[in-house]
Every structure is written in structure tokens, then in C-alpha cells.
């Protein structure tokens, strides 16, 4: 299902001195509230940042007026194709393979043949199409590049609101991807589109149902682990449970860089704690102390209580970064169970698998 939603608020949440730009967006739309639930997401079709398009045209020595063919198959000005049709901010293995076949580049060989895959993953995460055009100048003309680029795909964002608590509204929490790997700033397509979207403009949003990540029954104790933008669905959860008068206790683990600048929705959590909508809040700020503290450390520090909650029937929901966080948190949960049961690791693994089977351990990681 798709709605045309109007952006009513585009508010930065991180403080002036933060190293990050994380935004709270509020869209307005009509109807269908009953179809959405906290834990669901929305997706939209992004455009590439205009700066990226201009840089590409420069690198290709093109004006942008050239009529060429992109993934849509239609003849269009190059500028429009770069803006709307192809991925410029992400690269994938097949593109490297294609380049390698064209010119047998020795750097590409070592990346593609690396068994661990780590070097490749790192290369893919830190490069964009523009970097490749620079590295392989003259290898392909504009049409040649277009033929090898992926169609620009939709991006998904978790719903950060509760249809019950915020009727007619749809909130998103968006971290602007803006990185510098030493070759100038590299922008993420969708997050920058959202971060710079003017209030009053409209955007087509598609509901992405996520039945695996809905709230458990009202009386079930709930442990929510959501560092970074992973906290988005839990804002919806807590608001929804408060609006429903749910009786189950709730324990939220949050992580960010600094307490002062990056405590996403700080005032709202303080209120929820005071009003009982949240029973417990554990925080991990990685850049505040001498040593880096993450949510998994907070779980381990409170392993006894964590296990006690599980024994009392708590469900665990984890949301956020898939590459490291999900694994580290998984390991910390296993350890808390091992300590709690006093048995070995195999037993802990079995315990957690059981939770998973019962639907009490759910993850939404990306």
C-alpha cells in the first residue's frame, strides 16, 4: 500500500556539537491507520544527491543533456538518468567483476579473490561509483557505465511512531549517511534526500509490513535493544503501549556516541520513565568515557537482572546495525543466559533457540 504523505516536520535531534546528523521526520497522511503497526516500516524511491550527479557528469566529461538509455529503457537526458535511475552511492560486486573483465586491474583481482571477503566488503562500503569512474578514467563512456550500473532501489525506514498515539502521522528516524573516506564527502542517496526534504513537500511512501517485529501481548515483559537508529521502532512500541495502557514492564537499551549531543529522544524517554511507560533504561555512550561502552556491555553488567526478566517471560527485540551490533548483542545475551543458568554454552544456545522458536527473541537488523 502506498500513501502520498506530506512532510510536516524535519527536525534534527542531535545537538549542535554532534558529529552526526540524525533527524526526526513527521509525515501527515489520510486514512488507513489500522493497517500500520509499530515495527513496520516504510520505503520510498530515492533520488541521488544533485551534488553527486554533478560530480559524475564532470568525471564523465558530459554535459548532462546527452540522450542516453538507462535501466528504464527509455531515452532520457543523462542528468535525469543519473538522478533517478541508477545507483551511484552504492556499489556491488558485479560492477567490480565487469570492470575487471574489461581491464584486468590487479587491485580488483586481489579484492575479488580475497577469500575472507573482508577486504571486498570494506571496499564496497567505502567507495561509490564516482570513485570507480575516477580510478578507471577513459575505460568506459557514459553509456558504457550506465549499462553496468544497478537500478536505483527503494530504501526502507522503520516506523518511529504509533498509529494509536500519533493518529494521521507517520514518524521516521533517519541518520544522514555522510562520510569521508579521504576522497571527499560521500553522501547516502535516500538519507540525504530525507534529511534535506523541505517541510510541506510530499513523498510517496509504501508500507512495508514486518509481521515478525510487532509488539507482543500487552502483559509480556519486553526487553528492547536498539542502539543508534535502531531505537526507531521502540519509540513506536513505547508510545503504543502507553496509549493502550499495557501492563507489561519494559526495559530499553540505547546506545549512541555521547550523552550530551546524541541522546535520541532524550526528553521523551525521561517522560516515559516518569509516567511508567518505560520501566528501565540502560544507556551506553561510546565516546563519553575513556573506554568505549556499547549496549552489549550494559547487558553483561546487568546479566543477573537480564536473565531474571527472561525467566519471568520477557521477550527480546533487537533492532539496528546488522554488521556488528547484532552479533555482539547476541553473544552478550548468550553470556547472560549462561551465567544465569549456571550451565554451559551449549545449554545457553539451546535456551536462546527456544526463545526464538517461541517468538520471544526477534531481530530487525539492517
Amino acid at each position: 500500500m502506498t500513501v502520498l504523505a506530506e512532510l510536516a516536520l524535519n527536525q534534527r535531534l542531535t545537538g549542535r556539537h554532534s558529529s552526526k546528523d540524525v533527524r526526526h521526520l513527521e509525515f501527515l497522511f489520510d486514512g488507513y491507520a489500522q493497517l500500520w503497526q509499530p515495527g513496520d516500516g516504510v520505503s520510498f524511491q530515492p533520488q541521488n544527491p544533485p551534488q553527486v550527479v554533478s560530480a559524475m557528469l564532470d568525471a564523465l566529461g558530459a554535459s548532462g543533456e546527452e540522450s542516453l538509455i538507462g535501466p528504464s529503457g527509455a531515452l532520457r537526458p543523462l542528468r535525469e538518468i543519473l538522478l533517478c535511475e541508477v545507483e551511484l552511492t552504492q556499489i556491488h560486486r558485479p560492477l567490480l567483476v565487469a570492470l575487471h573483465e574489461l581491464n584486468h586491474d590487479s587491485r580488483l583481482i586481489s579484492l575479488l579473490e580475497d577469500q575472507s571477503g573482508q577486504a571486498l566488503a570494506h571496499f564496497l562500503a567505502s567507495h561509490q561509483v564516482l570513485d570507480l569512474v575516477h580510478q578507471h578514467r577513459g575505460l568506459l563512456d557514459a553509456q558504457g557505465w550506465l549499462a553496468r550500473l544497478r537500478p536505483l532501489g527503494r530504501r526502507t525506514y522503520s516506523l518511529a511512531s504509533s498509529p494509536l498515539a500519533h493518529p494521521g502521522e507517520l514518524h521516521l528516524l533517519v541518520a544522514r549517511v555522510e562520510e569521508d573516506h579521504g576522497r571527499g564527502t560521500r553522501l547516502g542517496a535516500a538519507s540525504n534526500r530525507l534529511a534535506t526534504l523541505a517541510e510541506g513537500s510530499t513523498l510517496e511512501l509504501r508500507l512495508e509490513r514486518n509481521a515478525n517485529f510487532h509488539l507482543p501481548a500487552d502483559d509480556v515483559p519486553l526487553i528492547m535493544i536498539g542502539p543508534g537508529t535502531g531505537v526507531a521502532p521502540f519509540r513506536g512500541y513505547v508510545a503504543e503501549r502507553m496509549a493502550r495502557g499495557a501492563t507489561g514492564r519494559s526495559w530499553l537499551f540505547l546506545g549512541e556516541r555521547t550523552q550530551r549531543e546524541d541522546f535520541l529522544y532524550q526528553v521523551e524517554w525521561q517522560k516515559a520513565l516518569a509516567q511508567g511507560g518505560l520501566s528501565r533504561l540502560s544507556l551506553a555512550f561510546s565516546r563519553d568515557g575513556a573506554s568505549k561502552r556499547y549496549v552489549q556491555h550494559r547487558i553483561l553488567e546487568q546479566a543477573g537482572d537480564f536473565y531474571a526478566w527472561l525467566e519471568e517471560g520477557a521477550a527480546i527485540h533487537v533492532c539496528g546495525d546488522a554488521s556488528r551490533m547484532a552479533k555482539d548483542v547476541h553473544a552478550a545475551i548468550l553470556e547472560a543466559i549462561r551465567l544465569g543458568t549456571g550451565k554451559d554454552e551449549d545449554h545457553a544456545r539451546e535456551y536462546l533457540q527456544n526463545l526464538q522458536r517461541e517468538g520471544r527473541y526477534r531481530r530487525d537488523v539492517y
Partner: protein
Amino acid sequence: MNDKTLSPVEGIKSRSRHLRGTILESLTDEITGAMREDDTQLIKFHGLYQQDDRDLRAERRQQRLEPAWQFMIRARVPAGRCTAAQWLAMDAIAREHANGTLRLTTRQAFQFHGIVKRDLKASIAAINAALLDTLAACGDVNRNVMGTTLANPAAIRPAIDAVCGSLSDHLTPRTRAYREIWLDEEPVVNTAEDLDPIYGETYLPRKFKIGVAVPPDNDIDVFSQDLGYIAIVEDGRLAGFNVTVGGGLGMSHGEFSTFPRAGDAIGFCTPEQALEVAVAVITAQRDHGDRSNRKHARLKYTIETLGLAAFKAEVEARLGWQLSPARPWQFTHNGDRRGWQEEPEGVSHFTVFLASGRVQDRPGRTALAGLRAIAEADVCEFHLTPNQNVVLANIPREARAKVESLLALHGLAETSISPVRSLALACVGLPTCGLAMAESERYLEDFVSQIEVLQARHGLVETPVTLRITGCPNGCARPYLAEIALVGKAPGRYSVYLGAAFDGSRLNAPWAESLSEPEILDALEPLFATYARERLCAEPFGDFVVRTGVVPAITSGPAFADTARALAAARATRPIGDGPAAVILEET
């Protein structure tokens, strides 16, 4: 004591188990950068104020972040005497935990700003490691004891330092809470053991200030102190002190039951009796002060309520003996001496001028780095002055060249600062002080420049004038003892006070309300013009405006309030639509 309902702070104090409260719990709570509400009162006794960066308030509200909570820590330095090693320790704390600047206060103490909650403990531990402390730097207790900088004759300096030190030590609260909370000492088993012979369970009704002045210098503004000591030197020796009581400068706009008051001399005591007198005055205030209304709780109101004679009798009853009559004294100097001063034995001193007491590095004037370098050379003492400057004291002859070159290197050698600039004071105000209604420290230098232009136009550049700006009527920079004072009323608008005595012995009078900068300058211009033409020989500006009837001579706190009331009434009845934007009171 009266039986009106006690102010809420009294309840917080008596429940606090001698200033412990839940400070330890507040410190470990990561969900907020603030302390729990009751603890925000108690931490003052430990030398801390909770503040927030007001420049960021609106923005952070929209960011769904709480205010940018931060703390001010004040370290006590009796009479402002500080060693080079202590200076280095304070410098390190400023750079490691605070906002990279040090601030010297009008009470000769250090202030650190912008310290976040999780850095408080390390900062306070470091201050204590340098043999200074923060206990009782704020709160309803005796604050930092002030003393004249480099009193003359030099031979009495040790005796003055000894009196300041003993007052400071004996009037420090006895509670062990401070060492438990900040220095990780074992908690006492029974907090009743902390019982304090001077302060009791609930300390004083309000803050209490003591200062020791050595004529002819009234650099410490002795008449602004709750309890003042005016040294009497006879035959080159310290004979004793005249005792003054009931000074205090805080008041509230539009509340005529509040007023600044200059202290009264009530008699003379010997150096050995000074502490006993302090205990008698403090315990009299402890038992008779108003604990129902914090705006009416300072000693000055107790004295207005009881009457000066009755208060003196109460003090003497506690002493068990009578004060002898006050002896004659004369103040002729206020503010700090500028530049170099030489002593006969080849020892010298240099006053480093610091605008508003702020020690910071700026292009061309690296005060923080420069003073650090001088402290590292370890050739002098650092005396913090009541005018927020620092005197590099007792520099031996052989080290002077080295100090001179470091001063020059860091742009601190200038002695050409105008008298008005060197005397000017401002409170901290925005963005950190929660009470500020208008800019103060950040505005002072600008405003002084405007006054300098005005003075130049009338050939008054070398004439000293005391000028002070505060962000609110609370009086942190002693505005009511300035010849010209601006007190914040609203952003960009100030109430203006004129006519204090240059030596600090007479309050100024409310003169105009809610003026903008152009209005203030327009109103002062004709006064400067007639002052330049008609002043008597060496007549200070404050005396001139009183003699010529621009403002009345204020001889008591209530008279100040009457003038303020008349000004407000005149303003209320002024015709709407025409006339000046503010009423200037001609005479009452």
C-alpha cells in the same frame, strides 16, 4: 526567630543529613546531565551550581534534548592568596574538564564553567589535591573570606593573612559529607556526629560574606560584606579592626522590601578577638535571620528588623563583653593598582589585568598560556584580587626580567589600560547564569569602549570611574557600590544607578529604568559634560552627581528602596505616546 512557614530550602537542608541528600545517586544517573531537584540546592554548599547553556535552550528543546546541563565549580582561596603550584593545578583543571578558561571572581576565588556531571568528581578531587577546596564556596554558609591585596605597610601582611585564614578555617562547615562524596572517604556511621557547633542542622538562613580591608585600600568593598573588618594600623603594627555589619547588595527589581545596604561600623576588636566576634555575629544571624523568605534572609534585613543597636547588643551578649568604640579610618583607594609596584627591598609586583576575571587565550593576548608559563617559572605568588585581576606578587629582583619577557611574549605587559576599564566589573550572566535578564560579561568590554569614547570627548580619559554591569539585580559584581551601574532588566535593557562613593562607602541611587545602550549614552553625555566643567578639585563622579542633585545621597538600604519606588511610580504615570522612553529621576 519567627514562626512563619519556613522556605522550602530550609526543609531540604534539614532533611539532607548534613548536606548529603542524594548527591551520590544524582551523580551516577546517566539519564540526565542534571542533579535531582533537592540536590541542586545542596550542591551549592559543596561549591557547585547547576546551570545550562542558555544560548542552546530553545534549539535543544526542539531537538528533544534536555537543556545542556553543566556545572560551575567555585574553589575557595582565602584572601585570594595562591601559590604558583596551585595556579598550575587550576589551569590544568580548566583545560581538562572545564571550558578551557578560568574565571577569577569578585570574591577572590576561582570559578570553572561548563563542567559536565561526569567530570565533577575528578575536578573536585584535583582542586583538593592542590590544597584548595570548594566546600562552602556557595550555599548558606560563610563564603570565601576576602582580604586586601598587598596591604600596606608590608609588615602587617602576615597578620592580615593569619586572620583571614583563621576565619576561613573555623567557619568551614564540619560535615564529612564533602569528603565522602567527592574524595571517596569512608561514610561516617552516624551522621549525627557531623553536628556543627556554629551552623547547627540547617546552617544559615542565607549566604554570609566576610572581608578584611586595610585602609587606605577598600578594594574588597568592606561595606558590601555581611561582616567586615577594617584594619587599624598604629605605629606600623596591626592594632585591631573596626567591625562592620549588615552590608549586602542583592535585591529584586520592583520588590521594594529588598534593597542593597552598606554595612555599619559597630565597634573595635583586637586581632585575637576577630574570630570570636565572627562567631557571635554568625550565630546571632543563624538564630534571628528570616528563614521564611530567602529574599529577606541576609543579615542586612535581620539588622533592619531588629535595629542596629539591638543587634549589636545581641552580639555583645553572645560575646560576654563589649566592643570598644570604632576608631577613625580613611579609605582613599578602590580597585587594583595598575602595572608594576616596587617594594623597598627590590621585590616587585605586577597586576595582570583580566577583563571580567576571564583567563583565556585570545589572539595577541594569551593570558591562560602566559600565566601558566609564569607559574611554571615558579618565581612569584598569585594573588587574586577583588577586581578579578591577578597580582604576580613578591617577584625577586633577579626574576623580574624573566617575568617581564613572559608578560610581553603573551601580550600581558600593557599598562596603558584606561582607569575606567581597569576598574570595570561584570558578573558572569549569560549564557550560563539562570537568572540573567541581559548580557553582562560578554557586553562589558563593548560598553566600556563606549564610555571611553564619551570620556575622551570631555577630556576625562584619565579620571577613574567605577563602572559595573550585572545581568540581574542579584548583585554578583557589587553593582550598587559603583559610581555607574547597569543592572539587566530585559535583553538589551538596563536599569541605571548612579552616585556611589568612589571609595565604596555610599550606595548609588536608582536613576533610570530600562534603557537601551543609545539611551544610556545619551543620558550620560550631558552629565559627563557638566562634570568636566564643574567638578571640584579631584571630586569623583559619584560625589559630583550627588552634590549637583542628579541623584540623592543614599544613606541607608530603605532609602535606596524609596528612591526605586519613586522612580517606578514616575514611570508608571508618564503620559503614553510621547516623552522620553524612560524617566530619569531628577530628585526626590
